């Protein structure tokens, strides 16, 4: 006879005793259970193999970088639709495989296996395409590594003199593909231990845009990228009774195959400055050791956790020369590479408890530090590969610490009403910045009221104030800053904020309605220049209705507005211009799902619309107020899917999708490669894409 000590009894004897005493099954704790007759003859335990294989084709009507970004549907044409999943289970071992979108550049594959209760492992692979713009063109040739000009190129002081531009431009996609590989697993050597290991590799290959400048001229360069990042997570965890201990090690190693790259200036330059170099992101390595512990106290439902993380970043990429101009003589570099090093540390403590039946408290403290130990040196500076500036400049290795204290308490006034309040304090210390330290105090209150079992109101609001010990205007002046400027992340700030959520689910009706809203207003009272104010308003509403057990309907809407005010001074004195930014965004989604129509068909319709509308106005003393044309974006998607269960094994799926995305963007509108006299751009234009996607696929199921 097997006597099983029930879990409820074990919980009741442990730290959750107070709550468990209120459990719906009182008295359970005293039982011992005779499970000898629990033979589970009706239990359909899985054993053997089952799998779904999907084959089909999808047609995409038009090229669209935006709509193909991440999805892989970026070019018109027919794509193979290949995928499936399956699982094999036997004797406590399981193996599951998944294949998705194999015919696309967003494909993924994974294998997960386990011996339940002993170990598990996974192998995964996926790709993520990044696509931008439909119309970019360039004169540069990157086939030799550096970016070179066409042989027939005629340099000029500005773009109007580029006489061979039209004949030398060729199409240039701004695109990259990110590949992810992962292998990892967990091993449970005993009931209390867990060992875990995970290795991930990301590779990103393709191109991106970067500006290369010469004095006041610049050319946008389509630069090749070839990045790889390796990550390792190792962990060991011990958990017994009320104590959990964990030790983890994390490594992130970034490898960029190039120190920098060069390009030929399309503009007329000084002698020897025709060729310039840009530094590429340097190789770097980050390691971090984390020690954590958590303990559940035997009374008051009290828990405490402590975590310490110590990390180190290293960067030793060799430097490029001050200049690639062979006619310039420059001093030797202070050192051949940065030999950069940053120590990071995080100490965190948290405590929660219910000291009284109706009360919960939470206290946490966190210390984060970034200690940049990179040596400081005096550096020459070559301006535009033309001359040495003559002024030596010190590199500035920024360091800072953040200390965060949070305390809150909740009191259950009635079973239907809970009130809570909290206080947060954040202290930040900086090196080499206008502010050495500032602190932010936040007080908030919250009520959660459930007058009916089906109606809940959750409201939270508060204020915060960031105080600055001293904004060092003298230091700011050494950086050439207007002393009246206050950088917004270092400035005095007063914030008011509030959130309200309302949830309602009518009794006996499978309908839920949820309304969420958020409001925050920032005032930078002491900032005469820079950001002086900001406000955000957001709301969302969502309704889901299970009309019948086979039909569901949903509707959701959302709106948000972000606005900001800032001031500037052209005259190096008091504010003489003011700018406002106003970003509106709205979205609506609706859908209908009908399942098991005639026991064979599932039908689903989804519609999503979102639109952005950003307005910028500038008020100056000279011209009065001017408003930029609106920055607009509109996205629409209508999607219909039909599944037909042809037989027990065969399912046929049809999908029709219409997507539309358009933008109006004055930064791109009418900007051909030579439109800006001093910038040779890539001629990217705003998006105006309409795409129809139609697909059919067959899903075949095998069960053994």
């Amino acid at each position, binding site marked *: 006879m097997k006597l099983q000590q029930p879990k409820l009894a074990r*919980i009741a004897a442990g730290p959750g005793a107070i709550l468990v005493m209120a459990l719906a099954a009182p008295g359970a704790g005293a039982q011992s259970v005779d499970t000898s007759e629990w033979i589970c003859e009706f239990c359909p*335990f899985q054993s053997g193999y089952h799998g779904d294989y999907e084959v089909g084709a999808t047609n995409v009507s038009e090229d669209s970088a935006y709509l193909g970004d991440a999805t892989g549907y970026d070019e018109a044409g027919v794509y193979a639709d290949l995928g499936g999943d399956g699982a094999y289970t036997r004797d406590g071992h399981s193996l599951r495989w998944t294949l998705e979108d194999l015919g696309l550049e967003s494909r993924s594959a994974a294998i997960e296996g386990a011996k339940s209760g002993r170990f598990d492992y996974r192998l995964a692979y996926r790709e993520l395409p990044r696509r931008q713009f439909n119309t970019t063109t360039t004169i540069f040739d990157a086939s030799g590594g550096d970016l070179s000009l066409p042989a027939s190129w005629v340099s000029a002081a500005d773009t109007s003199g580029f006489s061979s531009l039209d004949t030398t431009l060729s199409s240039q996609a701004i695109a990259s593909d990110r590949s992810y590989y992962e292998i990892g697993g967990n091993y449970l050597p005993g009931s209390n231990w867990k060992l875990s290991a995970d290795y991930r590799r990301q590779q990103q290959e393709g191109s991106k845009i970067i500006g290369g400048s010469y004095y006041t001229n610049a050319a946008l360069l389509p630069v090749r990228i070839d990045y790889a990042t390796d990550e390792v997570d190792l962990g060991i965890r011990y958990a017994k009774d009320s104590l959990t201990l964990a030790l983890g090690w994390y490594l992130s190693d970034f490898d960029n195959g190039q120190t920098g790259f060069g390009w030929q200036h399309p503009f007329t330059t000084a002698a020897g400055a025709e060729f310039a170099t840009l530094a590429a992101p340097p190789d770097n390595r980050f390691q971090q050791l984390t020690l954590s512990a958590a303990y559940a106290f035997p009374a008051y439902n009290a828990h405490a956790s402590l975590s310490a993380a110590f990390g180190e970043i290293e960067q030793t990429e060799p430097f490029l020369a001050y200049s690639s101009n062979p006619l310039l003589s420059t001093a030797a570099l202070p050192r051949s590479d940065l030999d950069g090093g940053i120590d990071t540390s995080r100490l965190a403590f948290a405590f929660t408890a219910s000291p009284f039946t109706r009360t919960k408290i939470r206290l946490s403290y966190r210390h984060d530090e970034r200690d940049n130990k990179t040596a400081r040196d005096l550096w020459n500076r070559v301006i535009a590969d033309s001359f040495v500036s003559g002024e030596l400049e010190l590199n500035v290795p920024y360091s800072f610490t953040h200390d965060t204290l949070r305390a809150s308490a909740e009191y259950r006034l009635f079973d239907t009403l809970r009130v809570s309040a909290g206080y947060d304090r954040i202290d930040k210390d900086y090196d080499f910045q206008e502010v050495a330290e500032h602190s932010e105090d936040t007080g908030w209150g919250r009520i959660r009221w459930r007058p009916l079992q089906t109606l809940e109101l959750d409201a939270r609001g508060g204020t915060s104030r960031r105080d600055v010990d001293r904004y060092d205007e003298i230091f700011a002046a050494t950086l050439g800053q207007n002393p009246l400027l206050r950088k917004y*992340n270092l400035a005095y700030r007063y914030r008011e904020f509030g959130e309200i959520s309302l949830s309602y689910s009518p009794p006996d009706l499978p309908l*839920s309605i949820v309304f969420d809203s958020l409001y925050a207003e920032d005032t930078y009272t002491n900032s005469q220049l820079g950001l002086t104010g900001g406000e955000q308003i957001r709301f969302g509403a969502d309704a889901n209705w299970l009309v019948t057990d086979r039909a569901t309907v949903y509707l959701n809407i959302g709106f948000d507005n972000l606005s900001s005010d800032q001031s500037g001074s052209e005259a190096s004195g008091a504010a003489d211009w003011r700018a406002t930014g106003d970003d509106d965004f709205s979205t609506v989604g609706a859908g209908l799902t009908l399942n098991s129509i005639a026991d064979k068909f599932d039908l689903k319709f989804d519609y999503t619309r979102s639109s952005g509308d950003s307005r910028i106005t500038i008020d100056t003393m000279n011209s009065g107020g001017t408003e930029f044309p609106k920055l607009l*974006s509109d996205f629409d998607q209508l999607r219909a899917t039909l599944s037909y269960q042809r037989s027990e094994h065969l399912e046929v799926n049809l999908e029709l999708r219409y997507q539309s995305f358009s933008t109006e963007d004055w930064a791109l509108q*009418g900007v051909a490669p030579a439109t800006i006299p001093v910038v040779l751009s890539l001629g990217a234009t705003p998006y105006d894409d309409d795409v129809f996607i139609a697909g059919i696929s067959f899903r075949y199921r095998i069960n053994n």
Partner: protein
Amino acid sequence: MKNAEPYRRIGSGMRANILKYLAVALLASAPLALHAQSGEETVSKYTRKGADTCLSCHEDAAALAIFATAHAVPLDPRSPFGHGQLQCEACHGPGDTHAGRVRRGAERPPLIYFNERDNTAVEVENSMCMDCHASDVGIGWHAGAHAFDEVSCADCHQSHARVDAVTQTSTQAEVCAACHQLQKNETLKAFAHPLFEEKMSCTACHGMHGDTVAAQLARVTLNDTCYQCHADKRGPYLWEHAPVSEDCGLCHAPHGSNHPGMLTQRAPLLCQGCHSQDGHPSVAYEDDGLASAMPSRYLLAQGCMNCHSQVHGSNHPSGTKLTR
């Protein structure tokens, strides 16, 4: 004895995944009541035959799907269906009273049912899961927003499903959006990470099981979290840009933005929030700098980044102005 008041958010489960709700509806259609009988106290024992008792009524697909999961592996002694374990009642609690006779028209006594109509305290529900899954949950779970707000494991996880939607990249965001709809809406902005496209999960950045990191981030700091995919921005650089080193969120809106690069604001205004030096940083650029008038390098194409393209930092010895 009065039950502790549950505080699961109304509707969260249904909005999380309509399939999940269908499963609930199917279960509800079986002869099993979701509500307690008011005013009656009944001491329940475990059933005499375990799962066989339960399955004599709960034979629908949604309930039986658990046998395709790790919760129902007989050879795993830690599984609820492992040898000598309590099978369905390991999680749902003693079911003898629930399975017994009830008066005609009366509701059956409840079990721990892990759904929004369940009257069991969330902490008790979660204890049932944590008894086996404590090591799967972060050290700081107790102090995280989910735990403090009494979010139930079952609000996000489907323990009976062959594939738990919240663990899948393609379906996870919809589960999280059940409570975080404002964040979901942001992902529909013109420039956002590909969550709407179902190619990225919320857990790529957030550790939903809690830690003492703000916003329950996946790594120790916000920047460390971003560097998981953007390690090229980590540096350290010879010429650093101070806000970049401190907090990516000072310039980027990670859930989405109206502006390219997920920037919080357009250049040059974004840059002019911190740069006021004489000359071009302090000038008010107006609409006469647009392409139709006198095209301005400060407004058009990449704006300030036409020249200051190394805004994340430069490792070039002549790159102090972040142009090299």
